[in-house]
């Protein structure tokens, strides 16, 4: 009886459909509003940063910049780019980022894959070991000594290896694998005599686009933005990544009596430093903003096509 009412043509069903279409419209409207608000909240400070970087020194010092550049000038960018070390900085950062992300993805995927498989005997213990590393950090001195003893000090590897596998990422990946890739797929493969490593390459990898993209992005950004490891473990200027170079330039322009007692010089620089810090952000984040669109396509609905059917 109830069924018949539900499936009655016209009348009730049409009313239901109309109501839900209206509900959907409301929802869409609210969702769009939320997104627009998010953009506005974020946009203003970003515009400010860009505008300030293209303004003149006195305009920024006097606080006259509010939305658009005031007294537009490229003074800040000239100041940044006259240092050749920027170019080596860019190059180094790219290399570290590429190599580091690759190593990261390999280690993390291997680890997460094994941990996501129920028939991996000992996964609880290994998983616990991974988690433990997230909580307990030995501290500055033992890590520094390790790098020195391994003779990695002042080499590219000192920047890449300490962060080469993060427990956080492993756990995130494992969660994704566990929930998105049904056990049946593996079982089917197992019956076909497919060895474990081949299950990794032919089942797991094709289905992991989104999570590999995300973790890859997070790693890449993390390495690109990292300052502390490079600052601690590098000594040769030729190896400095972009962040270290930029921070050095920025610091150069802030008042400090220990480097130069020439007050005149310090005073002129000080004005510049107001602008420079904004230009530095633009210079350092531009490449990352440009690669984002390439990664974005992985976050599209409906990647997971053709799931298991019976």
């Amino acid at each position, binding site marked *: 009886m109830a069924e018949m009412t539900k499936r009655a043509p016209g009348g009730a069903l049409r009313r239901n459909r109309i109501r839900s279409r209206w509900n959907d419209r409301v929802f869409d409207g609210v969702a769009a509003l939320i997104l627009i608000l998010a953009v506005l909240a974020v946009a203003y400070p970003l515009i400010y940063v860009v505008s300030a970087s293209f303004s003149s020194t006195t305009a920024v*010092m006097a606080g006259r910049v509010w939305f658009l550049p005031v007294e537009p000038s490229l003074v800040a960018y000239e100041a940044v780019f006259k240092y*050749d070390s920027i170019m080596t900085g860019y190059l180094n950062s790219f290399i570290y980022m590429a190599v580091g992300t690759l190593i990261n993805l390999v280690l993390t995927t291997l680890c997460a894959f094994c941990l996501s498989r129920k028939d991996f005997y000992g996964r609880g213990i290994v998983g616990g070991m991974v988690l433990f590393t997230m909580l307990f950090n030995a501290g500055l001195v033992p890590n520094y000594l390790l790098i020195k003893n391994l003779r990695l000090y002042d080499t590219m590897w000192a920047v890449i290896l300490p962060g080469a596998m993060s427990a956080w990422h492993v756990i995130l990946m494992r969660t994704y694998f566990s929930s998105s890739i049904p056990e049946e797929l593996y079982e089917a493969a197992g019956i076909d005599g497919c060895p474990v490593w081949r299950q990794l390459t032919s089942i797991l990898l094709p289905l992991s686009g989104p999570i590999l993209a995300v973790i890859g992005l997070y790693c890449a950004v993390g390495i690109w933005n990292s300052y502390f490891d490079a600052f601690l473990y590098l000594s040769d200027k030729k190896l400095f990544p972009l962040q270290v170079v930029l*921070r050095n330039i920025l610091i150069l322009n802030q008042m400090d*009596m220990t480097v130069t007692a020439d007050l005149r010089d310090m005073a002129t620089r000080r004005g510049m430093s*107001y602008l420079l810090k904004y230009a530095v952000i633009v210079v350092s984040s531009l490449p990352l903003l440009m690669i984002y669109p390439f990664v974005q396509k992985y976050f599209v609905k409906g990647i997971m096509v053709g799931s298991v059917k019976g």
Partner: protein
Amino acid sequence: MRKLRGLMSALLAMVLVLGCASGALAWAPEWEHDEDLSGYKLCDNFGDIKLTIAVTDHSSIEDWETNSYVKWLEDVTNVDLSFELIPFENRAEKLSLILASGEYPDIFLSVGMTDAMVGKYGVEEGMFLPLNDLIEKYGNFTKQVFDEYPGTKDRYTQLDGNIYSLPEVNECYHCKLATKAWINETWLKNLGLEKPTTLDEFRKVLEAFRDKDANGNGDPNDEIPFAGDYQDGWYTNGDRLVMNAFTYYNLDLKTSSTTLPDAFGLYLEDGKVTVPFYKPEFKKGVQYMADLVKDGLYYTGSFTQDSAGLTQIGESGRLGAACAGYILFTNLGDDMYKQYGNLLPLKGPDGYQNVISFPYDATAGNMFVISADTKNPEAAFKIGDLMYSYASSMRSYYGVYGQDWTNADPGQVGINGEPAFYKILVPWQETEPQNKCVLQLVMDHRDAKYRLGEPSDPNVDLKSSEGLETYLYQVTKAYEPFADDSKVLPPLKFTDEENNAMSVIKANLSNSIKQGMFAFFNGTKTLDKDYDAWISELEANGLKDLMGYYQSAYDAQYKK
């Protein structure tokens, strides 16, 4: 046979002569004040001795290995130098880590080594080389520095009798009296007011700034009479000006001031380590300051803004008066900058008048330290001694003789009125980044003769950017009569144990002091109700203990 031997000896003699000659010819004095540095050739062949030096890296230096100054050092000494760079930002952390790791370069040069580090790694752990004998035997220039600045040798002799570090000689004359105050003279003129000399006159001027249209833009309400900052400005604490009209007040309320004696107001009165908090004059001063804030005369934003905020007020034409090492709250040399003139210390209601001075900074810092594990202690030390020569100090700071600087022209006069010491040809900031010199990143000997010997056009516009040093020189001279150097605590040495105990006290006590002071100034707390509780809080956080540590160190090291 005899002929062959004769030939051999002749050849040998020739080689020796040539060798010596070529060594002596590697560098010879060029400038009129260059010293004879022939005794600083440390080995026969370049590269026989290799030394690694840790230095602070800076973007304005392209490459230490190929720098002209470094090449000059290598020419004079024949030593192969290589550098371990420590980036300037967060330098303390990296230095700490290097020191804790145990693997040291031969020399630490101007890396921000603190007294506590010398106490810990030098005295306590023996990782640094004692320099006493080396100074005796080889320290020509070092001994000259010690003679020129009496008391320095004692200050740098640690509690175990050894000298582990050498200071930089940087006699920044205007830095000695860097707590200057400035007032907008154009505004005074606009309102027909005289520059104030007493605190009450100052207050009246501030009231006029507040109420009238001092900057002439038609709006009487946009002026900010008096402001400061407590984050990163150079001596921009406004309370110093007011409080020093009541009692001796060196308290530095900057957020980052947490370890030095002035974070706690420590000073000397007749050989006793004192703080201002217990004096009735102190309370009067705090009340006066609180009233200034309440009446809108001292900008409340001062307590939370940074120097960028202060500069914004200054550069946008709204600032009446401020304290600072120089007129840093405007852009150097432009119209806004020219509106300000200096304000001498104000006389308080009880007639007290004082300005804070820093007499011990001429020779400061632990610029030069040698690792105890070095294989070439003699060579390492001689390089340090060499850096004290004028020859080295000119080249390290200015660059190549003949290209970047040269002899002064006859008749040229320095900032101090004496014959100029040198002439600059190319100011280095114009060609930056550069590779000619290393600025202040090594140890050097830039005493008053040197610094004030910079040629100065007697007709220079004092308010232009070129005239800055001359202007500050003259202003500083005007402040001198008001300073009382005897009240300043000299630098003291502490054991590692003492430092550890004090660091816990200091972290908590500095917070208490600053929170309380700000609360009083801001009106959140009042002197009648909350003062006694605050004093108790300071004592509970270890104020008296801290004073005790300083007193016993002072008695041991200075009361002879």
